[in-house]
């Protein structure tokens, strides 16, 4: 009996191993390995809700416009130029001689088909909201396309970086289901094999129109556990990981095999205060109380000592990388005496009681520690803060949307990756929006004018005004712009991307 069992066990094992050994054609020198904590749901980026799908999309596909990582400006890519014909028409010229992975040339009809597919309500594409302002797409000739928009649309060019170009032929002949597993793009890499929740293997597109990637193979591994991901980085199994926790930076930097790099990212954190009284009357409806809160916290000290420098002070919610940011506006500085005085003037000479809804540490690194520090600072100025911890982010988000987040709660905003002041002002500061706890007619007017003008100079002036207003009125308790941390193997050169989109095709071997 025991012997039979043993033989069966041994056979199963041997068979299993034999069947599962993959063929490794690539060598370490011509392969770069990237890891993600969870796999993408689809290789059809507009159909996915995941940031990872956007990142992988950059490797197999191209966008009409793309962000230059050094200047952070949007520049030409598959589109070579764009201009306004009138307030609601954009004309885009396309690059010639570009081919999809299947050999078909990229032309205007692919652009038209791509946008029409995304905008078709029946398709339920996740990316549809990004382009809802586009009314129609017209083919002028093989390399010229005209977009009609619903009213002036200043974010048009910015949004071109958020849409991959897909093949009209593939859409027609293969359909959505097939596209979910087979990316046919014009991008620098081609997908060879996808083992769900395990690994993607991509090979360099040697017909690529742009600079070709250094590494012939790109492997993307799925490693759910962060500690394992870091161990793989240190032992040479992976070349690049993202979202390194601040407390692990030292481990990586001292290992000798890898290093960390950080970059500011397009996300600002704040404590939202219920100025709009969505949850009923509360002390923060008084501007003096909001100003006192802003004067109480020593954010510079917190960034330096709690976050290891991983944060950039902001004067309002506008991120330094967003269009419209006003660098001349200086953030609040801690001044406890002034804060106490303001509180007394507001009618709270003996301090005030505040309820604070705290969120879990999934978006902001070290959120508990920074909350500890802020609450302690506020206590010195006379705020008696009662902390209510909500461990499930979904619950917190739901509460906030229903108007039950106040009087004070943790929040951060990622701008839907649009580098423009409007992308936070509209959703987080405009009266009546689900994430906004601020209501000010004057600001609403500025927001409305800003989003209906195509004149960049005029828009910039409007946003300067808006920031002054938000600063003076102390809409929320402003914190800082977040930073992302990457772990990079010492065998490669790589620049941490400000838009949080890793571009492995830019990696090269490290120069000695």
């Amino acid at each position, binding site marked *: *009996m*025991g012997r039979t069992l043993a033989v069966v*066990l*041994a056979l*199963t*094992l041997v068979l*299993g*191993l034999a069947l*599962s*050994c*993959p063929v490794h054609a690539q060598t370490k020198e011509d392969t770069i390995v990237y890891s993600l904590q*969870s*796999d993408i*749901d*689809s290789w059809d980026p507009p159909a996915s*809700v995941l940031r990872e799908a956007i990142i992988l999309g950059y490797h197999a596909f191209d966008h009409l416009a793309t962000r230059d990582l050094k200047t952070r400006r949007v520049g030409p890519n598959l589109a070579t130029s764009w201009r306004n014909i009138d307030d609601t028409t954009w004309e885009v010229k396309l690059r010639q001689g570009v081919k999809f992975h299947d050999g078909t040339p990229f032309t205007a009809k692919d652009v038209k088909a791509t946008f029409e597919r995304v905008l078709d309500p029946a398709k339920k594409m*996740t990316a549809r*909201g990004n382009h809802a302002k586009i009314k129609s797409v017209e083919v002028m000739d093989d390399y010229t396309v005209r977009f009609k928009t619903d009213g002036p649309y200043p974010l048009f060019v910015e949004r071109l970086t958020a849409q991959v170009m897909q093949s009209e032929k593939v859409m027609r002949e293969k359909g959505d*289901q097939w596209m*979910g*597993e087979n990316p046919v793009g014009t991008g620098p890499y081609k997908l060879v094999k996808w*083992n*769900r*929740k*395990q*690994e993607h293997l991509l090979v360099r597109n040697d017909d690529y129109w742009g600079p070709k990637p250094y590494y012939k193979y790109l492997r993307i*591994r*799925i*490693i*759910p*556990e962060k*500690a*394992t991901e870091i*161990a*793989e980085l*240190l*032992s*040479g*199994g992976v070349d690049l990981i993202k979202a390194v926790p601040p407390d692990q930076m030292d481990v990586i930097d001292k*290992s000798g095999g890898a290093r960390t790099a950080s970059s500011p990212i397009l996300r600002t954190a704040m404590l939202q205060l219920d100025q709009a009284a969505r949850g009923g009357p509360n002390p923060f409806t008084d501007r003096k109380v909001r100003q006192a809160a802003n004067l109480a916290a020593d954010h510079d000290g917190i960034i330096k000592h709690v976050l290891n420098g991983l944060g950039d002070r902001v004067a309002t919610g506008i991120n330094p990388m967003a269009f419209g940011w006003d660098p001349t506006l200086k953030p609040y500085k801690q001044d406890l005496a002034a804060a106490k005085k303001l509180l007394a003037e507001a009618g709270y000479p003996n301090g005030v009681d505040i309820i604070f809804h705290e969120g879990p540490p999934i978006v902001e690194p070290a959120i508990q520690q920074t909350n500890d520090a802020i609450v302690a600072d506020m206590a010195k100025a006379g705020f008696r803060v009662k902390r209510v911890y909500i461990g*499930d982010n*979904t*619950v917190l*988000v*739901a509460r906030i949307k229903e108007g039950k987040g106040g009087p004070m709660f943790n929040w951060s905003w990622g701008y*839907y990756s649009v580098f423009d002041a409007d992308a936070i002002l509209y*959703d987080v500061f405009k009266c009546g929006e*689900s*994430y906004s706890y601020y209501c000010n007619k004057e600001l609403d007017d500025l927001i409305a004018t800003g989003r209906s003008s195509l004149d960049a100079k005029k828009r910039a002036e409007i946003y300067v005004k808006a920031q002054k207003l938000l600063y003076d009125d102390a809409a929320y308790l402003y914190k800082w712009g977040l930073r992302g941390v990457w772990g990079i193997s010492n065998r490669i050169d790589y620049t941490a991307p400000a838009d949080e989109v890793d571009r492995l095709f830019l990696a090269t071997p490290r120069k000695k």
Partner: protein
Amino acid sequence: MRRYIARQIVQLVVVVIGVSILSFCILHVIGDPVLLLLPQNAGKEEFERYRHLFGLDRPLYVQYWSFASRAVLGDFGQSWYGNAPAFQLVIERMPYTLYLTLAGFAVTLAISLPLGVLAALKRHSLVDTLCTMVATAGQALPLFWLGIMLIIIFSVRLRLLPASGYGTWQHFLMPSLCLGIAIAPITMRLVRSGMIEVLSMDYIKTARSKGMTERRVVWKHAFRNACIPVITVLGLQFGQLLGGAIITETVFAWPGVATLTVDSIRNQDFPVVQCAVVLLALIIVLVILIVDVVVGFIDPRVRTGA
């Protein structure tokens, strides 16, 4: 014997139904998947539409019934994320989990049988104490920590083994060792106490007095009899091995059902979680059934229902 098996099968069905109801309820209590599925700027109508689309607006018992009536035919519904049938996603990953479990099982046997017998033979000696210490330590180690320690030692420091993933025989070593070490102590203690009990039996004395070699006495007479309770417990431990595999798979990025399940719980991908839980329960119950039958064959006292 036939009646015995029939009774066991009825029990099996009851357990699987119970597990499916329980997991169904827990899943629906932990949160609304639509909140996670839709982007943050989606409107109320959109939420209602998706809730309706997935049938989440119906009463729970109606939802369960429609799930269960299709599940018995192997249709667990489409994954809400993966664009594929849940059953197919789970079945694709099942072999990997079974390989890992069997490898862990082999390690458990390789550790616990020799050490258990040794400890019993050298009872109250230094060897016995050492074995007990190893067992206690093994049982006290959290799997998670053990896995990460193995990775740090063998991959980061010594650079001998790949830290995670699946592919070559080297990839099997750390995960199966990790799993085996966690399960071995209980089995080892059981082998030890079983052996001690059997060794004091009269038939062992008889065998010895017949002049049999000690090796024959230990392995042929004592060990075989001591094995009966061990086999039963091993069957029960199979469930624990699968449970341990969940943690092991996560640490070692092993592409099995467990990583799929954990990922699906995070996304609240109900069909996949439901399918994985039911299939894992089915496997555990089947293994226990097989063990019962095997023990029934070995030991006639069991099947006569004494």
